[in-house]
């Protein structure tokens, strides 16, 4: 495929003896949004952590923008500027202000001009309604606010591709919407390529171009979003959708 961003082939992952990912194959093209669904412990988080080098894998290949990824500390460090990731545990750096949290990557890693980045960060903060908190420390923010900042921090690096690992799972219910809206905007307005692990089924249904359904470390379905939610192929997926009660 011409505008293929990422391709995963025959990826296998073990924790010691435990085989957690079995022969994973899929690819994602520019602007596409994939949601990764499946029961707890099915390997969703492990899979997307492999995609930016936080987990090593035993066999298989990852190709990013038509170049094979040779897994090394240096290569991953370079790639992570293009592959943004946001985690469940919204870990802002508590020793830095909101602004410094966001500026760290663009100015220290990418060595961009401080004033330019500042201007851009202001814009981003305005978009997520948190401009007033720019000089606050993370401990002064609510969970939802922290998570929005964590997303801005990842976006400030101008990634080509974003990974979201259950970013709303540890938020209070009233905070969830605000965070999901930002992700939705990324899909709608910026045409961002994304892989999203989530348990918010309504959201997944709304945003997914494609669904990968993972169970016990294997991809059981790789189908367009609409089809998955209306008419999943496998019994396991049917069962899963029923159990989610949405």
């Amino acid at each position, binding site marked *: 495929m011409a505008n293929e961003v990422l391709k995963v082939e025959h990826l296998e992952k073990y924790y010691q003896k435990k085989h957690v990912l079995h022969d994973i194959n899929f690819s994602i093209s520019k602007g596409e949004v994939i949601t990764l669904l499946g029961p707890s412990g099915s390997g969703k988080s492990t899979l997307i952590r492999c995609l*930016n*080098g*936080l987990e090593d894998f035993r066999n298989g290949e990852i190709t990013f923008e038509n170049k094979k990824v040779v897994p090394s*500390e240096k290569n*991953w*460090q*370079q790639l*992570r*500027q293009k592959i*943004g*990731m*946001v*985690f469940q*545990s919204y*870990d*802002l*750096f*508590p*020793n*830095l202000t909101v602004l410094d949290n966001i500026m*760290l*990557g663009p100015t*220290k*890693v*990418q060595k961009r001009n401080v004033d330019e980045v500042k201007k851009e960060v202001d814009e981003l903060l305005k978009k997520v309604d948190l401009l007033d908190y720019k000089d606050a420390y993370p*401990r002064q923010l609510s969970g939802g606010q922290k998570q929005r900042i*964590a997303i801005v*921090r*990842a976006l400030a*690096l101008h990634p080509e591709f974003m990974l979201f690992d259950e970013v709303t799972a540890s938020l209070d219910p009233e905070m969830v919407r605000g965070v999901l809206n930002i992700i939705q905007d990324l899909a709608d307005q910026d045409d961002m390529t994304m892989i999203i692990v989530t348990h918010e089924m309504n959201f997944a249904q709304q945003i997914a171009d494609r669904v990968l359904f993972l169970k016990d470390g294997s991809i059981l379905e790789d189908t367009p979003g609409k089809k998955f939610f209306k008419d999943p192929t496998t019994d396991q997926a049917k069962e899963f959708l029923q159990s989610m009660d949405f």
Partner: protein
Amino acid sequence: MAHSGINVLFEGTNFTRLLLGMWTTFKIAAIAIVIGLIIGIILGILRTFHNKLLRFVLRIYLEFFRIVPTVVLLFLFYYILPRQLNLHMPGTQVAMLVFALWVAAEMSDIVRGALISVPIHQRESGLAIGLTRYQLYRYVLVPQAVSLELPATINLITRVIKTTSLLMLISVMDVVNIGQQIVEANNQKYPTGVFWIYGLIFLLYFLIDYPLSWWAGRLEKKRLEQANGE
């Protein structure tokens, strides 16, 4: 009051000599602490790396300085090194060397402990925004570790200052050594002089160490309050 023991302090240049002795003590401690802390921070960071051999060697270094009593270390460096290695150093330099190596060892353990107690998610968040290993330590892990380790570091400093009272054993003219000399010289005239001299030495040590100790306690309390407020 003519024969009151307290006058021993003001006989001749006694008082100035004691203060100068305290200055020597303070200088040795300060230089050893500065050098020791810098080396200790570096060793502590190295001890969080995955290289097994490196970690083993640094562990041995730590255990050696922790287990061997300071007196023995001082004697070892003062008497044995010159004889075996033909390395002649004045007592003050030996003292600085021994104390710096000791501080470095203890500090490496404090730094390592603080670094590994920074949550793993902090490390991953840092990596995820493309930080190199150096940047991760420089901007994320070390600053957070410092606030965790500061109280323990200050306590280490007070211990070092206290332990300088052993320096007389390797003939350094520190405050204890000078006090001892004054006591011996004035024993006839001021039989209770020993009480006053050591009383003053106690006071001098207390004046340096107590504020540090108080500061450490306050920082720890503040840190806990902040951590609970999260």
